[in-house]
């Protein structure tokens, strides 16, 4: 505990670095996988191909990926871009399948009703399919957020500073408190990100909450009806 009090400034600035490295992959992963997921859901041929590729990409271990990216991108090995690109690849790999599943979960009758009401393909996607796929997309995004936040620290092995610095430095100097503070800070970031995502979900998709309230209100109304019938 003492170590944290004395080094709070360091932990705080590393936490901010970790956040700065984790946010772009989460957002980029979501944005990139939307069209890919749509294509994967739309055509049977692309579905197999895209899901296989994303599965294989997700299989690549993170440290090797961070090491190999400079050779592929031509960046320096210490460049934080490697970590951001690597984590974006994982986010896309996870989200393409999730987006395809989310779009597949929209009731086909609802889509036809929208077409019948005169929606064009583009506006039907944004006004009907995308919002209805929202809950499944959000579930995927939450998984992406947690895994991205915890993977950022691996980048410190190849010299991209983040909370992982506390792990390596704590190991060298034999300070368990330093390592634990790094772990706790990572968990706190993951929890805060998760709460933010859930909050955004509630704001943008109020119907998921309203449903629950409705069903709760209905429950007590049932017994009297049964009693009258009896």
């Amino acid at each position: 505990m003492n170590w944290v009090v004395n080094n709070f400034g360091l932990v705080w600035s590393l936490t901010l670095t970790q956040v700065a490295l984790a946010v772009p992959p989460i957002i980029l992963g979501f944005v990139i996988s939307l069209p890919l997921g749509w294509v994967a859901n739309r055509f049977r041929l692309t579905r197999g191909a895209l899901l296989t590729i994303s599965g294989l990409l997700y299989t690549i271990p993170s440290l090797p990926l961070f090491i190999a990216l400079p050779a592929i991108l031509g960046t320096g090995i210490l460049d934080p871009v490697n970590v951001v690109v690597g984590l974006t690849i994982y986010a896309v790999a996870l989200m393409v399948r999730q987006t395809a599943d989310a779009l597949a979960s929209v009731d086909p009758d609802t889509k036809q009703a929208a077409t019948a009401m005169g929606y064009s393909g583009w506006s039907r996607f944004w006004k009907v399919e995308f919002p209805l796929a929202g809950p499944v997309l959000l579930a995927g995004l939450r998984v992406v957020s947690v895994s991205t936040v915890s993977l950022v620290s691996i980048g410190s092995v190849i010299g991209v500073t983040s909370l992982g610095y506390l792990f390596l430095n704590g190991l060298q100097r034999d300070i368990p408190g330093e390592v634990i503070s790094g772990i706790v800070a990572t968990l706190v970031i993951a929890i805060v990100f998760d709460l933010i995502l859930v909050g955004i979900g509630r704001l943008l998709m109020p119907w998921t909450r309203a449903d629950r309230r409705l069903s709760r209100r209905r429950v007590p109304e049932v017994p009297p009806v049964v009693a009258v019938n009896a």
Partner: protein
Amino acid sequence: MNFIVQGIQWIFDPARWSGPGDIQSRILEQLAYTFGAVAIAAVIAIPVGLLIGHTGKGRDVAVSLSGGLRALPSLGLLIIFALLIGIGFKAPLLAFVILAIPPVLSGAYAGIEAVDKRTVDAARAMGMTEWRVLTKVEVPLGAPLIVAGIRSGVLQVVATATLAYFASGGALGVFIDDGLATRNYVELLGASIVVTALALILEGIFALAQRLIVPRGVTAGQVKDVRTRPVRSRSTMGSPIQEGK
């Protein structure tokens, strides 16, 4: 791309395959961590997962626990064990067991949960005891998902086992440590390619095993499903009589 060719040459350099610290013993260490940790995790998590899936109790606890464990940074976990237990193979193994538990656990309870409840009720109605319902009905039908859980545990550990060198625990990360210390990028890349290849091979083996484990009764039932779902739902097509008017 030139570097990648050099990395592959590094792997197949005869010097890599002989003498102390040769690449095959590092690969074996990596695999020993992987299967050792996942085996221990399976012994702990599968019975718990089956219990949760069968009774439906404690599901929320299991979901939040496995979600929370997923957020743990693997590097931090490994290093804190190295500091507390001491260096060697035990600290990494313990860390990898903890990493492997969430996927194995959620695979086990999801597998049992996914079994059709009517099938389970039918088994009970036929007079099966709860134990036989679990072992003869739920486990065989849930097996593909249980194996999927083990598969993602294996994948997680085979990747993370590279970090065992932080606790002086050997495995393929030793080459990465050496490559970082001597600024030898080709060695880093070579070791990375080996780790990636290992992960892809294990993934392939498990993907195959997952297909083979589906019970014969289930695959026989699937044959009837050759007709795909109509593109338009029936309500919009109307009945033939209406269309003939």
